[in-house]
Structure formats: C-alpha cells, structure tokens
C-alpha cells in the first residue's frame, strides 16, 4: 500500500518506494476556482522541502505550488500544462503535478494524514 499524506500548503503526496507523486488537493482547487494556467518544475532539477515547485493560476489570481519533500524531479504532468482545467476535474488522481525521487523519507513524518488534513482544511477555511 502506498502512503498518501498532506501538507498545510494543500499539496498531497503519494509515496511508492522511492518515488513521490505530488499534486494539489481538491480543497485547494475549490478555493482557487477555475484553474487556467499551470507551471511545473523542470525535469532533472532538485527541489527543497517547502520550496516553490510550480505555479497555478485561476481567473482571479496566481498561487505558488510548494513541494512537501525534497528530491529530484523525475517526471512532470504535461497534461495539466496543456489543459489546466483538468486540475479542477481530477486534482487528486490524473491531474498530479510532478514526481520526485525522494531524498529523505523522514520528511514525510511531519505531514498530515487524510483525517488530519480534512480537519485542518475545514478549520482554516471557516
């Protein structure tokens, strides 16, 4: 079973061995509204935990996407760059943002479980 965790910046991360897949949560897409632009990190680049690793823009505003863990970018999802509305449609499955080769698995420990995140999202949006 792969493990899914959540960050306070509203990213989800799914760890499969060394490979982490990262995207933004459904709650985040609901707050952003219609997403019309996505920018992803470059393949082969290294990103640091809590650093900027992309941008999403709605009709209203731009928001940074952060990486919840450090690692090397091994893949990016071209589909969401070509059609950013896919992020609103399926944010936690097919509309993932990027995949990392995770540097330090212990960085996962500080992240939230699904239940913790749902509670957090509810409290912060109230």
């Amino acid at each position, binding site marked *: 079973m792969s493990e899914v965790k959540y960050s306070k910046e509203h990213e989800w991360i799914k760890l499969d061995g060394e490979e982490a897949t990262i995207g933004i949560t459904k709650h985040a897409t609901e707050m952003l*509204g*219609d997403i*019309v*632009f996505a*920018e992803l990190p470059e393949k082969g680049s290294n990103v640091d935990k809590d650093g900027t690793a992309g*941008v999403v*823009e*709605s*009709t*209203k*505003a*731009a928001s940074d996407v952060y990486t919840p863990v450090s690692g090397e970018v091994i893949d990016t999802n071209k589909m969401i*760059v070509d059609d950013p*509305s896919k992020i609103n449609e399926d944010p936690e499955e097919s509309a993932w943002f990027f995949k990392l080769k995770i540097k330090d698995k212990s960085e996962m420990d500080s992240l939230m479980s699904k239940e913790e995140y749902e509670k957090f999202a509810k409290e912060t949006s109230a």
Partner: protein
Amino acid sequence: MNIKKTSLNNLHIKYGAKLVEFAGYQMPIQYKDGIIQEHKYTRSHSGIFDVSHMGQLFISGGDDLTNDLEKIFPADLKKLKTNQSKYSFLMNNKGGIQDDLIITKTSDGFLIILNAACKYNDYEVIKSKLDNQYKLNLDESLSLIALQGPEAKNVLNKVIPGCNSLKFMNGNNHVYKNEKVYITRSGYTGEDGFEISIKNSDAETFVESLIENGSKLIGLGARDTLRMEAGLCLYGNDLDNDTSPIEANLKWAIPKSRIETEFVGSEVLKNQFQSGVKKLRVGIKPDSKVIARGNTKIYNDKNQEIGKVTSGTFGPSVEHPIAMGYVDNSYSTVNTKIFLEVRGKKIPANICNLPFYKKNYVKGEINV
C-alpha cells in the same frame, strides 16, 4: 466601518455566492458555476449583475444646469437628447481621471452613474463645482441591475414588455409591478444588454423573474473577465488620477466640439490633443499561456522598462491570456514585440488591438 449590503444580498446567498468586500459593499465574486461558466453563459445566453453598489446621481433644477455641467464634464451635453447617454469623465485640473461615468439626460435633468468606490467623493466634487445651486440626489433607495448577453433583450422583454425597442446608449421609463423603473441599453461586457434602475424593495422579485426566464446571476469575477475581453477600463486599475482620457486611449469620448471649450482639465487635454502623449493604453497579448496581471512590468527588446500592465487575466471566450496596460507611446503600435516580467522571467508578448472580443451591440430592434 460597517460593510454595506445591496438589496439582493439574500438572493446572492440563496444562489450560493462566494461573497467578498468590494468598495465597502459585500458583493458576490462568483456563484456555484464559477467564473468561466458564468462568463460563457453571459456570452451565449444572458447574465444578471448586481451593480447596486454603483452610484446613481440625479441632478435637476435650473435652466443653466446643462451649461454648468459642461464646465465639469467634457461631453456634448447640449446636443444630448432626452434619454440619451454618453460615456464621460470627472477630471482633476491636471486632466487626470477622478472617475469614469455615464451621463444620461432625463426629463428634468441628468442621471450620472458613478463607480462605487468613487461615488461619495464624486458627489462632493460635483456639488461644490455646481456651487450648491442644483438639487443633487445620490439615490440609495434604488438598486441597479445589469442584464447582459445575446438573450438579454428576450428575457427582459418578457418581464418588462417593450424594453427591446431601446437603442444602444439610450434609456426610457418603464413600469414594473406598477412602479416606475428606468432602463438604459448599455453595459460593461461587450454584449448587448440593459441596466435597470429599480426600487430596492422590488429588486429581488425582479431578479427572480429574470432567472425564471432563463437568465443566471453572474459575479464580479466574470464581470471583470468580460470587461477585459471587451477592452473596457476598470477605474482604479486602468484609469486613475494621474492618467488622462487621451493617455487612456479614450479620445473618442471627447467630442471635437468640446476641445476648444473650457471644462475641468481642458488645458491639459487641449495640449495633449495637439502635442500627443508620452504613454498610451494598449492591448497586450502574451505569446504563451502565461498570465500577466496588473503591475507587471513591460520591457522592450533592449531590456529597458517601457510601461506597466494595469489589468490581465485569462480570457475564457478568446481562450488565451489577455492584458492591457500603458506603454511609452513609441511602443504603442500594433504588433510591436514587448516583454512582460512574470515571476522573474521575460515573457514575449505583442501589442494588439482592443477589444479582444468583438462587440455585439444592438442599434435598436422593434420586432423580435
């Protein structure tokens, strides 16, 4: 300060609005469908906009009113026929725009529609410039509802029969539930449409009847993307106290007959008409999908800063990022290559014609 609510506040909540504060009012930024769907519905069918936060200033009393108002506004008010409207400006002595507005001649004076954030200041400025000689009423007992889109005429005509005989930039008195309403054919979306001035107590049932006839409530978010596609200015973003109507590329709103006459700011404007301006408002189309928002810096191909974006978004109907802004006049020609600084990168873009979305105004229709 207490946040104000329009008479449609309960209706906004009923239809699932996300409410934000705008110019001191609690206003809907979007409803359940979201900005893109609301935008497209307005373009394909019709949309209802609560613009009751805007000022409705009625001025009446005295034979010299037209003359005295011409000393303030650069519009040809003497030629204006009863119920005809003109787009104009309240300017300062430097020719800067304090507000952009629509003046309509009524049977006993003028009605001026003012931007929400400017209305109280406008009222004071106009009142003092008129030397308190006339009756001014910034009427807050009235709501203002805009109905925009290709189906607007059909929807409104079912609720208020006869209104689709109005011509663009003209108004008239009509009756709704035995009460007088004032309707103009105008708008802010690039579509055919109407603005209806109606008693606060009738606003909710009126809007419900528009909804029953197929229209939908549209929030400020889509109002902004619609007006940007139509190349229309938003006061505070694209127009301000340091920008003249000539610089804003709104020369068309100043009739030739007024250039040689006196009004507030006329000296500066006359000069600009003769010698030209340093900066000019232009349309901007980025080459890529990157969106350049307000305050984005504009550069030439030699990396010199030449201007600033004042509004920018993704245009849902043109399906491309769009922007407008001010550039040094020597870069204002269509197809000039420019660069927009977004998140530290220089994004290539071109100066382009406005509007991005072609207008669909109706000159008047009697049989539908």
